[in-house]
Structures are given as structure tokens and as C-alpha cells.
């Protein structure tokens, strides 16, 4: 067990958390607008395969990330059209999106099995990265890690201090009142859903381009669902998303390290631990009461006049 290096552990925690962080942040915005999209897993895995395919074909991970975000947003538009314009049940449609995305990804991914990702350079910030302990933990990551942190800051600022954020929250809190005030409920929700899709796509691409880095069928392995749980854990607050994602990233990394270190606990029990911890955290949160769920979350909006 001596082989676990705490500095490397914390450093790899940040990498392991980034996909969930991106996806959870996107879904939080969607839910803040009053929409429950259970298709995160499907959009993530689609982002993973599309990002990887583009990355391999162009040799650029940046191109992979960009197209993965577009693919995630594109897929989310199916959900947006069916739930917002055709007024379907959001739970069922989101589930459908996940099943569809899993099928789509394995169809697209067939030729890419076993290939290598193009690689994604770490920043290695001069001076800062040489600081003992803190350097390797904080300043030797790839740009997406920092972008994901910037995204938290951006979403927090947007939701708290801008008019657009206020409108988005109003739409999510009470869509009838927002509609009566003249806000375009459906338009706002379309944009929120597209943002959520793009973030899930980015998160998925991070898994296939950086974290693993190759394409394996079903490789997101429930990360999209964990992202959904983190939104609940975070009580719909951006900074708590960061906390939640890093907590889960930490557990994932720790159990992987224990597996590698030849722990006496069987591999299967270590592998199931992130899911068990998710359940545990959900229970603890629900005991304390579900504070902060947007008022119109998951409800169908139909403007009768």
C-alpha cells in the first residue's frame, strides 16, 4: 500500500473529476431552467466517440473537443424538440436519449476500437509548476482542467450577476410566471439544453481523449448518471458542483489506486464503490431535505394563451 503517492493521487483526482465536472455543470444549467434531461450519459458517450474520432482523424485534440461539444449539443436538440415543442415526458425522453446515444456511439466507434488518441499536451506552467507539492498537484495539468474550473466561475457569475442568469432562473422557478412576464420560456430552455449537451459532449471527449485515452464501447460507465447525482448533491449551486465532482473523482482515483496496489479487497467491490458512495451521498442529502430544486423542474410547459 506504500505505492500510493498522495501528491500524484490528488493530481490525478483533478483529471478524473473533470469529465463529471463538465457534464454536471451543464446539467445544472439545464435544471436551473426547469428541465430534467436524463440523457447526460448518452450525450457524454456520443461526445466521447465523436471527440475521439475527430481527434484521431485530424490529429488535434482541440478539434476533437470542439466537434464533441457540437455533437453533444446536436443530440440534445432531439430532446429539446420532443420535450419543449412536442411536450413529451422529460424522464422518458431523457432515458430514450441515453439509450439512443449508447447505440449511436457504438455504431460510430466500431472502426476506432484499439486506436490511440492523438495526445493532449499539459500546460506545465513555468515557475508555478516547480513549487514543491503544490506544483505537481495544481499546475501541471492539461488546458481542459483549467477550462472546466473557468466554466464553473463563468456559470456562477452568469447565474448570479447577469440579467440572462436571472431570466434563466425565473424560467426554471416558475415557467408560468416567467411566461406572463414576457420571457420566452421555450427559447431559454432550448439554449440551456444545448449548453448542457455541449458540456456533456466535452466531458465525454475528455474521457476518450485524455483520461483513458482510447475508445472503448460504453466507456463512460455511468459517469453521466453520477453527474446527475452531483447536481442534486450540489443543491444546484456551481461551487458545490466542484466539490461534488472532486469528491467523486477522489473516490474513483483512490479505488483505482487500491486496485493497482493489490489491495486485499476484491476488485469488484472496489469498482462498485463510486456507485455506492453516490447512493450514500444522495441519501444524506435527502435526509437534510432537497433544498434548492428549481420549482418547475421536469414539468411540461404549455402556454395556453
Amino acid at each position, binding site marked *: 500500500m506504500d505505492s500510493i503517492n498522495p501528491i500524484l493521487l490528488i493530481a490525478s483526482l483533478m483529471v478524473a473529476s473533470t469529465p463529471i465536472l463538465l457534464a454536471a455543470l451543464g446539467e445544472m444549467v439545464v435544471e436551473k431552467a426547469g428541465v430534467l434531461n436524463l440523457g447526460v450519459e448518452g450525450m457524454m458517450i456520443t461526445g466521447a466517440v465523436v471527440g475521439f474520432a475527430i481527434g484521431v482523424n485530424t490529429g488535434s485534440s482541440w478539434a476533437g473537443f470542439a466537434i464533441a461539444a457540437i455533437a453533444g449539443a446536436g443530440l440534445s436538440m432531439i430532446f429539446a424538440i420532443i420535450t419543449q415543442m412536442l*411536450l*413529451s415526458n422529460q424522464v422518458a425522453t431523457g432515458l430514450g436519449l441515453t*439509450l439512443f446515444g449508447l*447505440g449511436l*456511439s457504438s*455504431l460510430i466507434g466500431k472502426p476506432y476500437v484499439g486506436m490511440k488518441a492523438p495526445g493532449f499536451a499539459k500546460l506545465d506552467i513555468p515557475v508555478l509548476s516547480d513549487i514543491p507539492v503544490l506544483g505537481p498537484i495544481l499546475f501541471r495539468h492539461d488546458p481542459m482542467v483549467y477550462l472546466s474550473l473557468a466554466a464553473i466561475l463563468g456559470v456562477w457569475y452568469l447565474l448570479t450577476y447577469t440579467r440572462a442568469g436571472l431570466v434563466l432562473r425565473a424560467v426554471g422557478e416558475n415557467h408560468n410566471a416567467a411566461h406572463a412576464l414576457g420571457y420566452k420560456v421555450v427559447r431559454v430552455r432550448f439554449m440551456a439544453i444545448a449548453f448542457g449537451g455541449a458540456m456533456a459532449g466535452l466531458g465525454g471527449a475528455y474521457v476518450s481523449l485524455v483520461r483513458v485515452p482510447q475508445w472503448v464501447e460504453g466507456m463512460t460507465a455511468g459517469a453521466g448518471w453520477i453527474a446527475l447525482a452531483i447536481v442534486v448533491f450540489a443543491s444546484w449551486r456551481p461551487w458545490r458542483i466542484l466539490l461534488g465532482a472532486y469528491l467523486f473523482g477522489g473516490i474513483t482515483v483512490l479505488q483505482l489506486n487500491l486496485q493497482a496496489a493489490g489491495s486485499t479487497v476484491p476488485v*469488484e467491490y472496489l469498482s462498485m464503490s463510486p456507485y455506492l458512495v453516490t447512493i450514500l451521498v*444522495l*441519501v444524506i442529502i435527502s435526509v437534510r431535505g432537497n433544498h434548492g430544486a428549481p420549482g418547475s423542474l421536469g414539468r411540461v410547459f404549455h402556454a*395556453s394563451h
Partner: protein
Amino acid sequence: MSLIRLEKRPAPSRLLSGLTPILAVIATMFAGGIMFAALGFSPFEAIRIIFWDPLFDPQFGPYSRPQLLVKAGPLILIATGLALGFRAGIWNIGAEGQYIMGAIVGAGAGLAFYPSESFLIFPFMVLAGAFGGWAWAMIPAILKTRFGTNEILVSLMLVYVAENILASVSSGLLRNPDGMGFPGSRNLRRDFPAASNTEIFADTGMHWGVVAAFIAVILAYVLMSRHKMGFSIRLAGEAPRAARFAGVSPARLIIFCLGTAGALAGLAGLFEVSGPAGQISIDFNTGYGFTAIIVAFLGRLHPVGILLAGLLMALTYIGGELAQLMLGMPAAAIQLFQGMLLFFLLAMDVFANYRVRIGTPEIAK
């Protein structure tokens, strides 16, 4: 005001509710045809191979037809249970996990008595299988009723936990002691006749799981149309506030709906592991628990509809396998096709629930 408006119907149109699944299937065939063409297959040939040849082709029919019941059995069994909860607004999406746990507990109960030949073993396994699925579903049910924890996420997380337990027992607890160290349990169908779920009529695919599925459909129909619990389920789904005023206990509904769905999924797992699959192995589960969600919706959450939808979905599985064999079509194409079907169905629901009006609305009402 836009030119096209949707006007809520006082009650969903029954005619259109019945018609939309058929329209959705037709629309999926079109969209699927386009997808098949994009993949470089002849759309007409692909659709024929998927929907027609498994049943009527003189060469493949005799092999494929029995498979229809083999595949439809678990789908119908699971979907019937899920639909009860879905109608009440209780979202158990972890049937795959309940299916796995039913198989493990059921097979384990049988293997404990190997090599006994008692006729009691199989009925005991059936009970154990139902119990395994029920107990697994009770976790989200109790967490929901005690603490208000979201059952969607908990039931889904438990699928991953169940998959890990499956991996653990197939190379540990239930591993075949005579299997030279290979993972996987004893083959119940081949090596343990008293624990095997055999075909009741040869070459029909009719095994005990299919019988159970038919019984479940009949019982669910009676429950929903004749029993007070069925009324409570419908009331809770359509008018939750009214249900509370009428004294319907949400906790009882949650325990009942999740428990029944879990038990039925567990049964499906037991019948599968002791029949078509034959043994507990690491990749024993094939996603029936998730496809059953599509079946439940395609069947309009109605037992008889689910029966038909289960058969149709089974046909796409068999047809998909045939298309794999004949055309080299990837298996994922069929999964995508099934996903599309759900989308079209949900999208077309709008016509059953709303009237489409063209022109500007009248001012006075």
C-alpha cells in the same frame, strides 16, 4: 401568436393513443431505412430481413420463430412491472440490476442443492429469483419512502453495483468447481436437469418464463382495471393531489410498484439464467432491463399493449441478428433503431394529448 397552436384535450384521445404506436413504428421504419441506406445497406432489404424474414422465410423462419417467445418473455415480464410504476409516476429505471440479482439469487438457490434431482428445486429457485429482484428494488423503494431519495438515480446506480456483484460471483462464489478455473457457474440447462427451465413444447420457444409473462400480463390487466390498487396507481399518476386527498398512501404505492417490478424483473432473470442463457457468467445480462423501458412505453403502459410491444421488440432483436448474419449490419444499428422508435412514439404522443389548431386563437373565451 404563432399560426400553429396546441390545445390541450380534456382527456387524451383513445383512438390516437392506440394509433400512435403504429404510426411510430411506420415512422421508425422510414427513418431507419434512411439510416440503413446511410450505412450502405439497401433499406428495403434491411427492413424485410428485420421484420419479415425471421417469421416467414422458409430457411430462417423455423429457427427464428421460437426465438420470438424466448426474447419477448423477459421483455414483457419486466415491462409489465415497470409500467405499474411509470403510470404512478414512480421511475424505476434499474430493472437491469433487479434482473441480474434475481438471476444470481435464483441460480444460487438451485446450485446449493446440486446434484439433487428433487422436483422442488425449480419452484424454490423461482421464489428465490423473485425475492432477489424484489429485495434489490426495495433498496430504492425504502430510501425513497424513508428519506425521499430520488429513486431514478438510486435504482440506476444499483445496476452498476449488480453488474459488479455478477462479476464477483461468476468468478467466485458461484463458479463451477469442475470448470477448470474458468469463470461462470455450472450450466443449469446442461448439467443440472432439476434446476433447468426447459421448453414446455419442443421448438416453440415456450418456456416457463413465457408462461410467467402471460400470467403477469393477465394479472396486471385485472389489477389495473378491477382492483383498488390499480385505481390508486392511475390516480396518483394523473392527479397526484387528488390522490393524496383520496387517502392514497404514496409510500404504499412506491413499495408496491417498485417491489412488483423488482420481483418480475428478478423472475425474468431467473428464467433466463436457468433456460436460454444456461449459466451465470460475467456477461450474462444483455440489456433486457433497459429495452423493457421502451417496451413499456411502446405498449402505452397497458398490459395488453406491452404484450404486443414485447413481441415487436423481440422481432427487432431477432431481425437484427439476422441482418448481422446476412448483411453484416452492426448490432448497434438495431439498438439505434429501438431508440428511434421510442423518440417517435414520445413525439407523436402530442397528437393524443393535444389538438393541433391552425390560425390565430379567438380572443374571448
